[in-house]
């Protein structure tokens, strides 16, 4: 198996190796000509080119959209109306009462998302960290367990939402269990608290494998002798964890936090299938709001949706910068 894997790996990389060899001489000339600074440009170029065309331009277009009105889909069918969409999103008679806002659902979505992110990111990071730590231990069947925890990542969000709806619905698996335990069945998804908990739990269930994997890769990179030094110092396990593992996991931890945060704010598909934003609007999150405004109905309002997405992005950028700023401080301490 391992031998086969190696052969396979070689077969896959062989053409790439050839290509890599072929591009070396011209790049060497380029390097001599421009110095290493020029090489940085070479390394960045492909990514930035693709990135510019397929990410940056749409983003800019999206911004332009946010300043147009009407139901037209393409930009040339839309009229420029300036910042009106933003005004509409942010307009409230009484900012203490959501219901008085022009887009009360937007505000509902914002508060819901904020609560969701706080709980979900905390849970996600905790659970993935614990799992990564455990999977990093020298246990029998590590590979198997790693696969187990990663498995839900392989499922499409729609299927995730569906499975859990089947589990949580009135006559679902969970109630089958509660009834067998002699408890009253509960319509879980009709209860504000349970529904919210379900969105947090299910999204964690679905994505924790992703973060666990990142953290695991980070754990593997921590030199072992540090743990030995700590052991010689009779350091209690929790302290080793807090003072050595966590700080040295720093960069990976930053990745996880940033990504979890971003993806938490962007949560959509599985929740859409699972709770649809209910009960009432208690699990209505931002992306669903944007989706409904911009796409779901035939009377779409892409301008409003774009404006909402830009606002969401702006908040995320601020959060991420804060996060990166912290991790940069940690980065300064990194590695020998």
């Amino acid at each position, binding site marked *: 198996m391992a031998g086969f894997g190696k052969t396979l790996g070689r077969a896959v990389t062989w053409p790439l190796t050839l290509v890599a060899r072929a591009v070396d001489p011209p790049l060497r000339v380029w390097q001599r000509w421009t110095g290493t600074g020029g090489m940085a440009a070479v390394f960045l170029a492909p990514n930035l080119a693709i990135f510019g065309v397929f990410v940056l331009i749409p983003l800019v277009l999206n911004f332009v959209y946010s300043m147009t009105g009407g139901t037209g889909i393409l930009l040339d069918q839309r009229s420029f109306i300036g910042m009106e969409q933003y005004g509409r999103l942010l307009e409230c008679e009484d900012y203490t009462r959501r219901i008085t806002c022009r887009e009360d659902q937007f505000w509902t979505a914002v508060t819901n998302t904020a609560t969701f992110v706080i709980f979900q990111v905390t849970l996600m990071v905790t659970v993935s960290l614990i799992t990564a730590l455990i999977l990093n231990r020298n246990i029998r069947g590590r590979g198997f367990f790693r696969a187990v925890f990663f498995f839900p990542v392989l499922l499409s969000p729609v299927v995730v939402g569906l499975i859990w709806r089947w589990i949580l619905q009135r006559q679902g698996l969970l109630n089958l269990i509660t009834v067998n335990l002699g408890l009253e069945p509960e319509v879980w998804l009709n209860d504000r608290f349970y529904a919210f908990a379900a969105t947090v739990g299910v999204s964690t269930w679905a994505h924790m494998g992703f973060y666990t994997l990142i953290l695991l890769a980070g754990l593997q990179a921590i030199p072992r002798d540090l743990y*030995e030094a700590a052991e010689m110092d009779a350091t209690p396990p929790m302290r080793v964890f807090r003072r050595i593992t966590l*700080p040295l996991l720093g960069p990976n931890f930053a990745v996880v936090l940033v990504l979890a945060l971003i993806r938490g704010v962007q949560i959509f598909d599985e929740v859409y299938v699972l709770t649809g934003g209910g009960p009432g609007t208690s699990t209505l999150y931002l992306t669903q709001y944007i989706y409904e405004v911009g796409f779901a109905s035939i009377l779409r309002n892409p301008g409003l949706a774009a404006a909402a997405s830009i606002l969401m992005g702006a908040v995320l950028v601020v959060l991420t910068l804060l996060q990166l700023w912290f991790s940069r401080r940690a980065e300064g301490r990194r590695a020998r």
Partner: protein
Amino acid sequence: MGRIVLKGITKSFGNAEVIHGIDLEIGEGELVVFVGPSGCGKSTLLRLIAGLDRPTSGRIEIDGEDVTRVSAADRGLAMVFQSYALYPHMTVRQNLSFGLENTRMPKSEIASRIDEAGRMLEIGDLMERRPTQLSGGQRQRVAIGRAIVRNPTAFLLDEPLSNLDAELRGTMRAELAQLHERLATTMIYVTHDQVEAMTLADRIVVLRKGMVEQVDTPLGLYNQPQNLFVAGFIGSPNMNFFRIRATGGSAELPGGLKVPVPCDGEVTIGIRPQNLKLAVDDAPALEGEIRLVEALGAETVIHADAVDGTPMVTVLSGQPALGAGQRIRLTFDELPHLFGTDGMRLNPH
């Protein structure tokens, strides 16, 4: 406090046994040095004592207690790692205080210990730096400091000075000696450096391929090496060996110089380079041709080939006017070391 006893220790990695049954007693407050060629198992043995690895068989006792199954944390030892193993994300001060904080020591006590260690190791100015911002030597000192502040039952030091420059190494060696004297704590010290081994050790343990070759005081080892390996390993440059047939109670060195030998047959005669000196012109002497002259200033190392081709080295003090290609005639005063065909010492103790 600090009596360490090893009984029949073996250690295998996978199928490869790298420690083959070691028995050793290290007394309270003793400073024992492990020496031996690279890969002979010094670090491994130290790690076994530390509790970082488990012996495959055998028993380790500290102060009479069996600690073979006790974890490293609970053995109360301190270790200076060959790779430093400094916490890269902590300042020097934090590196030093980390181990102390585990013991719920009062803050002021911690601070004073760190200050003292900082002064002793000349790292007082670096307290707020991180390991990345230190030179190799400075890192090593911090690593030593980390062990010192702990005030452990015993110190385990794995080549703690190997990255320091000569001057600092000398100072540190003296500091360590003083430290040992002052603390009277048991120390086990792994080193490649003969000078360190000779000057620091109460006793030296010579290891070879996972076995103990000889355990003795430094001068004991130097003067009475039990076998060819120890004789060759201790002392720098290495002892000169001449393999000769002895007949009639004496053996003839190349060049004609005779050495009394208590028995007949094949023997190896060992003469330390420092014991060789230029012979008076007409006396019988060890003769050879100079291959290489290494002038170290205070002394000069002369590599020569004896007339029968055996390489030989001598250390002459000062800067004698000798050059490659010249003939050289050497003699010696002290009795040479004699070894049998089995490599064991023949001289009486």
